[in-house]
């Protein structure tokens, strides 16, 4: 199927064009027909009046001519000139031809009479409109007849051409045209205005609908439209409102469900902490005692201790994550020497020997030390667990903040897993069902960086993985 050719213009322009076209066509049609009617009526009237005038005048002529009666003398040129004068009048010119003599008028000559008329006029009364020297004339041509001696009616041999000027009619028609053109222009303006107004009337709700849909898309789910009248647009607005309400309802249901589940996670984590505290309290004692136990029971105790430690990390991360989710996490900014902060972080966790640190001396920035510690600890912990040594941490100041890089030299993360490394409980290797990590570390690191207005990105290296943290100057 051929794609529809796109209209290059908007709905408003299309509406205006259509409206204007209809208005112009209608008014042109009316004006044209009206003009034709008036023009015909005017010219017919002038023609009838001129004809009857000419006929009447000719009937009154008594000058003998043609087949003469006894005692009659052929007409003299004075008599013919008199006939010419009688037929004439204001706005009229008359040419009289008697036998071969032509009595032309002031401005017109026999050549001005249309050729075919000269012959036709001998037989009957003919009329024709002609343009002579740019002026419109009604030309009436005829040959008067006379009763001959034998009682028959014979042609007189005199042909008369009366030129009736149509200047006045032309002027009237020109005035009419001008008037019609003005009326047309006014109609066009009214049409355009009407089109614009109605386009506005139609488009305003459409535009409002568009804005409302955008607002809805931007998350303002309480967006509603006023519904006026009962037309299609009103029904559309009502439908929009219903949709928005339904959306708002289901989103708020989802949100409350989400809040409930978040609350549940937070509560569970907190509840887990009490038994964990009791267990943690006796871990050191158990560890020492285990040394005195035989193989299997000692192994059992170590297993319990190891799992308590894992549970501790998991619960701590869950609490951290639920804090971030609840939006209650806040920044407590302090001036921090980065080298000290990184060294403290590694030392506290016993990682100092396994990590190479390269931080410029005296590099300091304002940040939340506890959260920075979490970021570094989670990235380094991840590198130590999943990567291969050497694990390197470098930090440098940039124009707009601080850049910390954590690099390991392991197998690296599979490319298809890259977009998900910051997802919660995401495990890069499908086969890996157990790990000492909580599965939340990287997501917590990223959330803490974002809390500072910063970012964490990950890139594959040959070999290994590079995490880059950027924190802006606050």
């Amino acid at each position, binding site marked *: 199927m051929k794609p529809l050719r796109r209209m290059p213009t908007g709905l408003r322009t299309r509406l205006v064009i259509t409206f204007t076209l209809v208005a112009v066509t209608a008014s042109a049609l009316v004006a044209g027909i009206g003009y034709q009617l008036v023009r015909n009526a005017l010219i017919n009237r002038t023609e009838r009046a001129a004809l009857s005038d000419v006929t009447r005048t000719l009937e009154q002529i008594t000058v003998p001519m043609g087949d003469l009666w006894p005692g009659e003398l052929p007409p003299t040129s004075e008599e013919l000139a008199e006939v010419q004068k009688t037929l004439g009048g204001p706005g009229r010119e008359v040419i009289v031809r008697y036998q071969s003599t032509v009595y032309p008028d002031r401005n017109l000559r026999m050549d001005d009479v249309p050729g075919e008329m000269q012959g036709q006029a001998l037989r009957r009364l003919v009329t024709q409109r002609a343009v002579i020297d740019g002026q419109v004339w009604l030309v009436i041509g005829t040959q008067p007849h006379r009763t001959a001696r034998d009682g028959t009616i014979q042609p007189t041999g005199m042909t008369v051409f009366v030129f009736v000027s149509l200047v006045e009619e032309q002027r009237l028609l020109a005035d009419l045209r001008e008037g019609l053109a003005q009326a047309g222009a006014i109609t066009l303006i009214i049409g355009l205005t009407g089109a614009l107004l109605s386009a506005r009337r139609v488009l305003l709700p459409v535009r409002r609908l568009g804005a409302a849909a955008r607002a809805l898309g931007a998350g303002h789910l309480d967006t509603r439209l006023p519904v006026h009248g009962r037309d299609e647009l009103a029904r559309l607005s009502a439908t929009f409102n219903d949709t928005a309400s339904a959306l708002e309802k289901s989103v708020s249901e989802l949100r409350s469900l989400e809040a409930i589940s978040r609350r549940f996670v937070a509560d569970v984590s907190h509840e887990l902490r*009490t038994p964990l505290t*009791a267990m*943690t309290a*006796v*871990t*050191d004692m158990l560890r020492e005692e285990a040394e005195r136990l035989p193989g299997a029971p000692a192994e059992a105790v170590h297993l319990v201790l190891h799992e308590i430690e894992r549970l*501790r990390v998991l*619960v701590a991360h869950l609490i951290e994550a639920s804090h971030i989710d609840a939006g209650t996490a806040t920044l407590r900014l302090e001036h921090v020497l980065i080298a000290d902060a990184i060294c403290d972080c590694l*030392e506290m966790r016993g990682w100092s020997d396994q990590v190479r640190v390269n931080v410029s001396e005296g590099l300091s920035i304002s940040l939340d030390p506890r959260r920075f510690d979490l970021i570094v600890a989670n990235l380094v912990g991840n590198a130590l667990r999943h990567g291969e040594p050497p694990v390197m941490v470098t930090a440098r100041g940039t124009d707009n903040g601080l850049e910390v890089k954590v690099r390991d030299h392991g197998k690296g993360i599979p490319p298809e897993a890259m977009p998900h490394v910051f997802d919660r409980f995401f495990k890069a290797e499908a086969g890996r069902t157990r790990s000492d990590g909580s599965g939340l570390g990287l997501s917590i690191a990223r959330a803490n960086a974002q809390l500072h207005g910063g970012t964490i990105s990950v890139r594959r290296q040959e070999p290994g993985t590079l995490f880059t943290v950027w924190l802006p100057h606050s």
Partner: protein
Amino acid sequence: MCRVAGILLVEDDPSVRTGLELALTRQGHSVTAFSTGEEALDHIRARRPEIVILDVMLPGIDGVEVCRRIRRLDQLPVILLTARGDDLDVVVGLEAGADDYVVKPVEPRVLDARIRAVLRRVESASSDRISFGDLVIDRGALKVTQAGREIHLTPTELRLLLELVRHPGQVLNRRYLLRVVWDHSHVADSRLVDACVQRVRAKIEPVPAEPVFIHTVRGFGYRFSPP
């Protein structure tokens, strides 16, 4: 009031109480444990312990209130056991006069280190008295007096003040203070320092809101420079 060396532990959950009691006893401390603040307060009046370890969430009067009541009578060290590290109860607890806090679940080693840090005796310099106006700090007798009246400071507060006084005019950052006063060797909570400075100011400054002895250097730390 007879002075008995030992730890007073206040914790309502029996398992946690037993666990901590076992661990602390094993580390060589003498522990007396209670499950409510009221009982603990009664006991303190009768037999003053060396240190109090106080759970914040307690039935009846809570840990913060217990701490506040202890401070009304005594400057004995208090460590709070809190459920959350960056919660409001930490701030409130420190304002109420707690010397340090640990977040549950706490490793016995860490708790032991904190206890020892708080109980660490202030090393007394022999007969060393410095006076700043009417504020007299006797580093021999470990006594602070103002206009002849003795000011009671907790051991932590005293250590902080002495540390600041030892470096007059010098800015000491929070990390340094945490290390020398609290023995915290890692990134710790600087709110400890801030709260302790507030408490010392409340005791020695004529107008605590406009300090003349301990000045805040924004973003860095504190400086002792007497008027």
